[in-house]
């Protein structure tokens, strides 16, 4: 069976890169004695795939991976077992047994599903945004001006080439506080309600692990994520820095991922990855 795991990554674990996170979870599943499915061959490894790698330095409330298990206990017990062997900075908050694919159907991986992510981007204390922006109000006003420009052209570097891209269409939500964010999010989300079946799923209701800074300068962004269209939050902040004529300092911002979504083909609305059956 395929199981979708949702986890948080926070604190000092933000310094652990994606490949090391994969290795970390492989070892964690062994410590928790999960009955993992292995690939065949002389170097078998656990069947595991991540929705979208999280960059070094980022924290998250909503990371996803799909794993293969041969057997298991109830989702709640499985979450308890894995959390007993976690390091500080990793916490599993969801466990959902995916619906078996029908005949002639393949498993749909989290990676192929993801199309959007929400981020909270906060200015770390002791960093400044130049003389013109000294307060939260200044920031909100300037950022709105920036994001409302007719187009936001950036130089997007790929392995092969560099090209000018308009990133504006890839930004689908902007908010400056939690209430505004939740409000806007509601209208973007599909209203499918998830049937919680304790034998299939367990989701812990937990508080956000995002770091909070005294200066309160922050922005919520929803950005395209995935193979079709992908925009890193760092690129938006780099474009913003050049908009306000300051040097971009990648260390000034703490980027925190809040959630990942897939876009429903028919309604064009978003569904978070933990509210999907497959």
């Amino acid at each position: 069976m395929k199981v979708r795991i949702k986890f948080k990554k926070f604190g000092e674990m933000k310094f652990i890169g994606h490949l090391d996170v994969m290795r970390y979870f492989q070892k964690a599943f062994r410590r928790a004695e999960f009955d993992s499915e292995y690939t065949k061959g002389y170097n078998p490894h656990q069947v595991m795939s991540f929705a979208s790698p999280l960059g070094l330095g980022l924290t998250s409330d909503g990371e996803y991976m799909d794993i293969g298990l041969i057997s298991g206990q109830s989702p709640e017990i499985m979450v308890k077992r894995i959390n007993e062997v976690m390091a500080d900075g990793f916490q599993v908050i969801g466990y959902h047994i995916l619906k078996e694919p029908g005949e002639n159907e393949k498993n749909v991986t989290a990676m192929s599903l993801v199309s959007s992510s929400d981020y909270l981007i906060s200015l770390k204390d002791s960093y400044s945004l130049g003389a013109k922006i000294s307060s939260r109000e200044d920031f909100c006003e300037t950022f709105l001006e920036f994001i409302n420009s007719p187009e936001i052209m950036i130089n997007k570097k790929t392995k092969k080439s560099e090209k000018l891209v308009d990133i504006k269409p890839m930004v689908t939500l902007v908010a400056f506080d939690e209430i505004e964010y939740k409000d806007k999010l509601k209208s973007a989300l599909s209203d499918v309600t998830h049937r919680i079946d304790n034998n299939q799923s367990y989701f812990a209701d937990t508080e956000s692990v995002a770091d909070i800074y005294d200066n309160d300068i922050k922005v919520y962004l929803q950005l395209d994520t995935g193979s079709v269209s992908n925009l890193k939050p760092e690129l938006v902040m780099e474009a913003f820095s050049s908009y306000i004529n300051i040097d971009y300092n990648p260390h000034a911002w703490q980027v925190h991922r809040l959630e990942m979504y897939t876009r429903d083909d028919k309604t064009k609305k978003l569904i978070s990855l933990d509210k999907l059956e497959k």
Partner: protein
Amino acid sequence: MRKLALSDEILLSVEKPARYIGGEINMQRKDPKAVDIRFCMCFPDVYEIGMSHLGIQILYDILNRREDTYCERVYSPWVDLDKLMREQNIPLFALESQDPVKDFDFLGITLQYEMCYTNILQILELSGIPIYSKDRTDEDPIVIGGGPCSYNPEPIADFFDFFYIGEGETAYNDILDLYKECKKSGKSRREFLELVAGIEGMYVPALYDVEYNDDNTIKSIAKNNDLAPDKVKKQAEMNLSEAFYPTNPIVPYLQVTQDRVVLEIQRGCIRGCRFCQAGMIYRPTRERDIDYLKKCAYEMLKSTGHEEISLSSLSSSDYSNLEELVYFLIDEFGSKGINISLPSLRIDAFSLDVMSKVQDVRKSSLTFAPEAGSQRLRDVINKGLSEEEILSGATAAFNSGWNRVKLYFMMGLPTETEEDIEGIAILTDKIAREYYDIPKEQRQGKVSVVASTSFFVPKPFTPFQWCRMDTPKEYLEKQKYLRSKINEQLNRKSIKYNWHEAELSELEGVLARGDRRLSKVIYDAYKSGCLYDSWGEHFNYEKWLKAFEDNHISMEFYNSRERKEDEIFPWDFIDVGVSKAFLLREYKRAKDVKVTPNCRELCYNCGAKSFGGGVCFLAEGGN
């Protein structure tokens, strides 16, 4: 949550920040304020190397079993962080508490290879601890050295308060108890060091004076304090099957060199290869009980979640219950996706069967270490491996589907002639010929034979400690000669030849058999920018040459002369069990091309029997 010593900005601007944050699975967490003794254990190389070392894991476990002690870890900051720490005056910190190393009671440094010596000075300097022992005060940690290079600690004697000679299991508790007592009664650093010298195995360099002859050889080594012993006796743990094995080792986030469970099956080696220091200093050979090892394997795999387990020892094929242990591991864990990785085994029916079970034959290669190209020279070094064994092993392997072979040789061994060097090329070619003797339809494509040569470096406490070592120029000529001989072979196209850098080996030779006068050279080399010398890309030969020149010390004195039989060596004050008389007998037998049987066949009275256990009391031929 712990507060990290480095800012986000620094951590995100250096390579692999996970090297510096600690917080790994199975890391010990204690309240530093609630303990009496804070001990920082250091491996003076980068995290991924240091974390792969078993010895530190064992000591970490032993020290942290004490409620009154918190043992933490520190490794060399990589060059990127080194630069930032110097620019911003950030003191070096321990991974667990992230507290400055300078605030600790002890800094214990493991000395695994000579080329880490400049990194020791980096650790001291970045910690803000005076580099020279004589400049330290009661405010500074006590700096301890241990590990294989402490069997000749003299080149770095000036930097250490004391050396622990031997295996850490035996005396650390006594040292810490003594320290606590001294602290309570308000004794000074000097008083503590004098008392520590009274614990068997401890060497406090400041309590000894060395006098030199006019020709720079040593005239005498004498203690200058009644509390110090004349001879420092190596420590050996004689009971390896009880407690003291860390069944919950730390699991790094980064991919380290040993990213697996390591099971030490025995200590010491019965073989007695005459170039091998480990084979002498870890005598007598002691095995761990097989049931104990099985239990450890279970517990360690469970507590770490590693997907691989590896056996560790100097010569695994000599472990009495190897077959039972290996088949147990395969049966018990193989089906659970655990890789069984085998250290270099003698190639025979058993090892080929095991290897075909645990690895993909097409992708793996077989390794032989003949060490020398001719039978004569293999007899000189007492390497009990005949050409027939090598060739029949290779044939058996080829018949089982292997087509890749790796061969390890040393160049510059005592009594070596051009014929011996040519022998490397001939033996390598013979192995390839064995392959092509197999009918074509049964072969798996082409054969690939990789021959590697390293340069022989004479080490203290080996029968070759008296030997002259070749100069880099001589080495390079030999290398060229071998290259040309390989090119003359029939199967030259199937042979790949790799070699080591000669300059690095030259320096290793000097530091291995050096004396106290080298401390200043190491200091100057470090101050001129030498660091991470064991990493080829960072090794700067010119800077080292200048440091030697500035101090009017010649490398030739240490490397390029045959020592007299009665010369006093800098390490003669250490009693490793194996006697100097035995080593000399062995050296003479080497020159007479006489092979000495291994410890199980016949006891040659090396002296290690004085430890009262191990193979000495099991050997049939023992007397």
